């Protein structure tokens, strides 16, 4: 069989960084080809070159035996190369339906056929099991849903190649399964799928081949059937990783945060507590309301009823500043919207929450600022040419590390982490687990939301499970397993309209 898409000796340089050097990969029709590598290895850059977003510094792309020099992403799309980008490309100001069909709206002459648009959108959403109103603005929904819409949009288009750059980063298992069904279906039609994920189990479940990138170089392309996870990891990191994270037990102390019968817009009657030195995991399906609970606790959203106790004292938290004063910090799920100031430097982002600690009279102490940043870059292994680099020029995973780092640097009493390992590579994940575990050992109370079941099982002392706005159960780590969690996560019917 002839390859459909060939990447030949592609090199890409950014100022100060060589993102890709001499990478050559062939993609065949009907195969699922995974690309793996550490954060900043160059995966997204390669995809953007194929999709016509970047021009390679040298090398070429051959598609269907023709050399292509895309001037604009639309040209690649016209040829049938459709991409789900790592940084979501949805329009929050347009309706769900319009987002679904963006760029390929049903039309009559130059007019949009709105009737058709909404009816097909409805069918489509049903197919993906998304119970949302297609007339609503997409901006109203959480990241997980936006990601599903983006996936749906890509699969709807007539395509010959679909690139999926970390499509599952904020999807829970159920939706991942859904996506895999779709992928299998596409594969049967002969579509080539390029699939990127940091969840290696997924790769082994769905991919036919895997290409490993390290520091912008292609290490190898292998059939998935004759390679093991350990080998892949070794090739990614360039050395053997012996000690995967092994769960440690922490000394658990007094209750620091207690939530009683808390209700908000999309959740009801939620009660739980966290103790010093404890890691409380939160699991559940997309839109279960986990994010909203946490945002309510830190005062970003208004609560409807219920009480919050810190150190056994009832508190009113009206805004995040109150929360911070009480020692609560939160790593938000949506790094672009809530976590980072993309146009500011790595340093400015990391030190922002800690400014009060770094002050000299009313001035910023720039020396301690640099020290703190250096500590964070080393600890989290953030790949950046300098601490003054704007965050927007970092790879997705490295951006995520910056968000986590800026909160850890503050060392709050209670740390809420909402999908903290979204898009972070295996090696770095292990380090983050270690770090979280250390923090707990130092007495910090930690709440961690994650849609990654193995992760949650691995790290938590207890696991709270949410379903459709209700807390359906809290399991201790000993009794918890995947089946039990899934069962709790699908228990209730939805409460939102």
């Amino acid at each position: 069989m002839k390859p459909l898409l060939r990447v030949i000796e592609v090199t890409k340089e950014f100022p100060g960084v060589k993102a890709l050097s001499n990478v050559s990969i062939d993609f065949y029709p009907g195969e699922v080809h995974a690309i793996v590598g550490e954060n900043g290895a160059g995966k997204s850059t390669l995809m953007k070159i194929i999709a016509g977003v970047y021009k390679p510094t040298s090398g070429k792309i051959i598609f269907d035996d023709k050399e292509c020099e895309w001037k604009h992403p639309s040209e690649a799309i016209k040829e049938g190369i459709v991409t789900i980008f790592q940084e979501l490309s949805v329009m929050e100001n347009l309706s769900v339906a319009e987002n679904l069909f963006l760029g390929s709206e049903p039309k009559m002459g130059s007019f949009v056929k709105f009737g058709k648009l909404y009816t097909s959108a409805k069918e489509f959403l049903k197919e993906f099991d998304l119970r949302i109103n297609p007339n609503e603005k997409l901006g109203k929904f959480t990241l997980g849903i936006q990601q599903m819409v983006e996936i749906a949009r890509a699969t709807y288009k007539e395509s010959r190649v679909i690139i999926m750059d970390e499509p599952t980063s904020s999807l829970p298992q159920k939706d991942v399964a859904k996506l895999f069904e779709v992928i299998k279906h596409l594969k049967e039609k002969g579509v080539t799928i390029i699939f990127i994920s940091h969840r290696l189990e997924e790769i082994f479940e769905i991919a036919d081949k895997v290409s490993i990138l390290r520091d912008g170089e292609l290490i190898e392309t292998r059939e998935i059937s004759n390679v093991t996870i350990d080998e892949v990891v070794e090739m990614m990191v360039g050395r053997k990783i012996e000690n995967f994270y092994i769960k440690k037990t922490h000394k658990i102390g007094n209750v620091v945060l207690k939530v009683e019968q808390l209700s908000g817009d999309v959740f009801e009657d939620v009660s739980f507590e966290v103790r010093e030195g404890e890691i409380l995991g939160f699991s559940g399906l997309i839109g279960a309301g986990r994010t909203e609970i946490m945002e309510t606790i830190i005062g970003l959203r208004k609560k409807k009823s219920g009480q919050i106790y810190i150190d056994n004292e009832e508190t009113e938290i009206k805004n995040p500043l109150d929360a911070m004063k009480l020692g609560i910090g939160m790593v938000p799920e949506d790094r672009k919207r809530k976590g980072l100031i993309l146009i500011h430097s790595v340093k400015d982002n990391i030190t922002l929450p800690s400014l009060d600690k770094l002050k000299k009279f009313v001035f910023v102490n720039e020396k301690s600022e640099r020290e703190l940043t250096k500590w964070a870059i080393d600890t989290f292994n953030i790949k950046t040419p300098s601490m003054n680099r704007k965050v927007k020029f970092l790879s997705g995973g490295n951006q995520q590390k910056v968000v986590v780092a800026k909160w850890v640097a503050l060392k709050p009493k209670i740390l809420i982490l909402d999908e903290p390992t979204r898009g972070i590579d295996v090696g770095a994940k292990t380090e983050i687990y270690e770090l979280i575990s250390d923090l707990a050992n130092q007495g910090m109370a930690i709440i961690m939301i994650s849609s990654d079941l193995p992760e949650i099982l691995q790290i938590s002392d207890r696991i709270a499970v949410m379903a459709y706005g209700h807390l359906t159960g809290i399991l201790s780590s000993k009794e918890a397993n995947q089946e039990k969690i899934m069962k709790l996560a699908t228990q209730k019917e939805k409460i939102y309209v």
Partner: protein
Amino acid sequence: MELVKKIFAVREFTIFLVLIVLMLFLGITAKGFLSVANIFTIILNVSFIGVMACGMTMVIITGGIDLSVGSILGLSGVVMGLLMHDFGVHPLASVLSGFLVGVLCGLVNGFLITKIKIPPFISTLGMLSIARGLAYVLSGGWPISPFPQSFTIQGQGMVGPIPVPVLYFAGVAIIAYIFLRYTIVGRRIYATGGNLEAAKLVGIKTDRILMLVYIINGLLAAFAGFLMTAWLGVAQANAGQGYELDVIAATVIGGTSLQGGEGTILGTVIGAIIMGVLRNGLILLGVSSFWQQVAIGSVIIIAVAFDQLRGGKES
């Protein structure tokens, strides 16, 4: 009940309510306000700003701004005037040449913004200065008149009780409404304003959209220049000076967000009419000229505050 709710949910509803309240108030207190002739005079007076505001709405939806509309109005008016008056060109040809000038100015704006990546505020500020300067250079600052009647009738004529410029304004608004609301290109304008990067990634040629929008805006500014010149019967280099703020105000009062991605022509038209009603009404009320400015500023703020309060509830 459902219907009422639906009406309330329409984005333009509150601002429309503001307009109605304002008109009722003036109808009761200001003598002659609610006469047919007065109403049409108000719309006539805002038709120039209104036409430009339709283009501005599109520009602002893409997240941009165009400060040069007043100057384009002036320049295109002068060009039309000179051609007709000094060179004896046929009125129709002169008007079309004036439009061409508007399109060219828009093209340059679009080019600077998309290709040279100069922020819209700066490129159009530069154009504001350049187009105005050219208008002065061409006319030497001298008012240009008279014009053939076939030309002035476009501004001074009446169809029944309705002044012709009002009809042109209505025409422009309706076309713009349909264009933005129902066509593919219209929807892409929203998409571009909602998230430029993302729009590019899903294959929308955002540069073309932006180009188009600034060209339309230039054309509509020239169209306003045509209407104003025909209405006044004289072309002057300083025509339209400072109108950009009025045009943008009409647009924003009508609910278009300067962040981009949001806004409708219906809202803009209502916004423009509110401005006209205010100006006219305050004169009719006999408010002193000194206090009028204070009143206009306050009402603009109150109108938008009112809209905000409703909007606030929604989100």
